[in-house]
């Protein structure tokens, strides 16, 4: 509970600060006094949720390092010895293929998304054409389309295009259904680029494309990383489109690999947990190095 009490110094009993700062209604210490005294109710509830989040993750890590014989002694028994045999088992199951396919789908989705969404956002914010406005309204309405409900025509379409059983078939709808939100995030960011900067570019006699390349792209680096991560994680974790658009081992992605593994070795929980951990590892590493961008990208809120 150190979490809760450590803030006591700033609470109502804290010594009063010099008068001139206290009169400012936007002054930070005043606000802290008002609403951020130790709040025990919210502290207890938060701790409960912390347990609910942390315990399954800790169990997963323990189980993944156990031998099966240790695991069967009970869910809370600590492992007698740590083993990496599970890694070997997961790898033998073909996880290298699954991980490779997922990496291709992720990279392809991010690349295609940037190629489509960046010029579109620029056009929507800056173009005077009626088409740009109409497209933007179209994307707004498109936000409400539930991707799950369209799997049957998507399946038919990919079959007709001869793309069934290919990774391209996964990339195309994955990108399409995230396009509206990404365009919305990017065009929101581009609106913040001031008109004065655009004016300044004309001094060099820059054309529309040069402005896009030299001004718009550098100015929106932050939101570009956000949408890259948003698109990438959704592609990495995607399940439904791969499920209906591929069926052979060679073209399956890692989420389906997990399902297959569970289907074949239902009682090998340590192996399964190791498989889950391995499938999450790249995203987790990204979380360690770029938490801020990642959380912003996951929320799709633009990093507030």
């Amino acid at each position, binding site marked *: 509970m150190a979490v809760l009490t450590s803030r006591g110094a700033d609470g109502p009993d804290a010594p009063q600060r010099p008068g001139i700062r206290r009169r400012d209604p936007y002054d930070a210490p005043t606000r802290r006094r008002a609403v951020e005294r130790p709040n025990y109710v919210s502290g207890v509830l938060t701790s409960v949720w912390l347990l609910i989040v942390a315990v*399954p993750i800790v169990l997963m890590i323990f189980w993944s390092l156990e031998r099966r014989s240790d695991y069967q002694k009970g869910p809370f028994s600590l492992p007698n010895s740590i083993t990496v045999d599970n890694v070997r088992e997961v790898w033998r199951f073909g996880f290298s293929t699954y991980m490779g396919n997922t990496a291709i789908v992720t990279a392809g989705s991010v690349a295609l998304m940037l190629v489509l969404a960046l010029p579109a956002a620029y056009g929507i914010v800056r173009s005077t054409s009626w088409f740009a406005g109409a497209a933007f309204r179209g994307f707004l309405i498109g936000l409400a389309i539930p991707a799950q*409900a369209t799997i*049957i025509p998507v399946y038919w379409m990919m079959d007709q295009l001869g793309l069934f059983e290919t990774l391209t078939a996964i990339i195309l709808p994955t990108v399409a259904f995230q396009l509206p939100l990404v365009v919305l995030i990017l065009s929101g960011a581009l609106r913040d680029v001031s008109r004065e900067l655009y004016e300044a570019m004309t001094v060099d006699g820059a054309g529309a494309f040069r402005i896009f390349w030299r001004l718009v792209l550098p100015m929106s680096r932050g939101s570009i990383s956000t949408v890259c991560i948003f698109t990438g994680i959704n592609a990495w974790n995607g399940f439904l489109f791969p499920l209906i658009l591929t069926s052979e081992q060679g073209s399956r992605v890692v989420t389906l690999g997990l399902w297959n593994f569970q289907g074949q070795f239902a009682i090998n929980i340590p192996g*399964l947990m190791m498989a889950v951990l391995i499938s999450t590892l790249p995203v987790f590493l990204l979380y360690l190095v770029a938490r801020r961008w990642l959380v912003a990208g996951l929320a799709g809120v633009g990093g507030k």
Partner: protein
Amino acid sequence: MITTTDAPPPTVDRWRPRRLRSGIDRAPRPNALYVLPAALFFGTFAVLPVIGVAVLSFTTWNGLGDPQPAGLANWQRLFTDDTVLAATGTTVLLTVLCWATQTPIALGLGVWAAGQQRNRAILSAVFFLPLLLSSAAIALLWKSILDPNFGVAAKLGGYIGFPDGNIIGHPRGALACIVLTVAWQFVPFHALLYQAGARNIPRVLYDAAVVDGVDRWEAFWHITLPQLRNTVITSSTLMIVGSLTYFETILLLTNGGPGDATHVLPFVMYVEGFRQYELSFAATIATVLVVFGTVLSLLIVRFSGFAKMRSTLEGL
């Protein structure tokens, strides 16, 4: 809709010089070709399938050959099919349960995480961990935890009325398992929305409340909650429309069982389409889902004053 936190209030433009306000600067403008690829792509791979769903619902198609016209046969079957009727009830029940579980938790966590203290930042890092895992990974993790033989459920089931630990094998227990798993997965996302919303509440409101001698609970009830109204609506809309994505969780966690206790409409759609190969009947269910999802989000937006976005800043 979600990005509103980032954009400056549109009224700001009013005080800009006329030339810049109306968007007239001398910089060259991109033409419609910049938007065209994205629009075509979206039209082909997202809008066309939505139209396709509706068209397919008036055909008969088993996945082989081409769909044949079938008039209203699928729709007549839809309204008399016992599986579909039962699944509709389950879908509504599950959506309500998930909303009622997630909203208070996400609201509380989000408001709490909106504080600036260091320890909150560290704890928030833990709270957002489930966001990293795929639906498949989360469903399989919880399936292991709820395993009646070796999982945690075997130990703890006795305390909550399941002496054999087989919570997931009981119709009501299985529903509860799905609600728990879904909450574990999606609460962090909604907490992020509430965190962003809570950070945008003007401090002056709380300062005024202190002058009036308001305690914390009253401040939460009369300032925080009303100020978060738009966030509540956004989050609820996403939850309700997102209840279609529980399909993956259900497929992996309970596979619709025990019996048909956890058959929801998206699950029935998948089974009809890709296990029974009645793809045109599955498309009929999908049409209902599209209409249901869209109408519901529009109704929520219409009746909760979401359109009057700026009204929370009245009087400031």
